[in-house]
């Protein structure tokens, strides 16, 4: 077995970071904090989406089997670790990729779900009640 590491494509364009770097009040900044900005090892890129009730983190993990993906939530940090195995002749190559995202304190571990489909890992984080959009009635 040989252990090797490689980097995937860097973030598609750094421009996508700029809006929230410029605006500290941007939704993203206030919810996930600056810890996400540039990981020390940018090997597992992520897309983040939200709707009224959930946050969604999408990772590209081609060739990764369900049993080789690990999702941890500890001290408000969501860590995704995957291991890619590739068989070349009788040699197996393993590559570990990881990514951590800081999640606001009000998020709780229970209710986090994950799905692996066509090489895309989707982690769903339910929003705490107080972060859900609401309408305030005027008296």
């Amino acid at each position, binding site marked *: 077995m040989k252990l090797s590491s490689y980097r*995937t*494509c*860097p*973030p*598609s*364009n750094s421009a*996508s970071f700029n809006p*929230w770097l410029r605006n500290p009040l941007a*939704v*993203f900044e206030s*919810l*996930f904090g600056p810890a*996400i900005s540039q990981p020390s090892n940018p090997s597992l*890129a*992520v*897309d*983040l*989406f*939200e*709707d*009224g009730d959930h*946050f*969604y983190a*999408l990772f*590209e*993990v*081609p*060739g*990764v*089997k369900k049993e080789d993906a690990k999702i941890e939530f500890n001290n408000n940090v969501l860590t995704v670790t995957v291991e890619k195995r*590739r068989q*070349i*002749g009788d040699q197996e190559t393993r590559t570990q990729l990881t990514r951590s995202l800081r999640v606001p304190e009000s998020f709780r571990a229970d209710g986090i779900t994950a799905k*692996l489909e*066509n*090489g*895309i890992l989707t982690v769903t984080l339910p929003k705490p009640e107080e972060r859900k959009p609401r309408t305030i009635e005027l008296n």
Partner: protein
Amino acid sequence: MNTPTCTPTQSSTCTPTTAKRTPRYHVSNDDASCRVQVELPGLARDEVKIRIEDGILTLTGERATALPDSWKEVHRELPRASYELRLRLPNRLDDSQLAASLADGVLEITLPVRESAQPREISIQ
């Protein structure tokens, strides 16, 4: 001896700014076949097309399934472009026997080496 039988026309580089995204791929060979593994995360089987013309294999893939309308983009790192990969196939590979399968976002293409191009020993009469 393990001579490379597949000759990629280009290397697997990151080109996130162009409209097409060259997928990461790996080539492995033995005496009887050539195996190409192409990483196409997010694609379903019917979203991948393989075309062979004049000894060039062109692979294209486009994500047809859109994200739910209710999802608002918060942060984006993954390239959104469609995939394209072109590989020159050497003559010794029998492209009429190409087999391809997609699993876990990886397309595996197998091309057998033509019988006439396989190594053999000739006995002296």
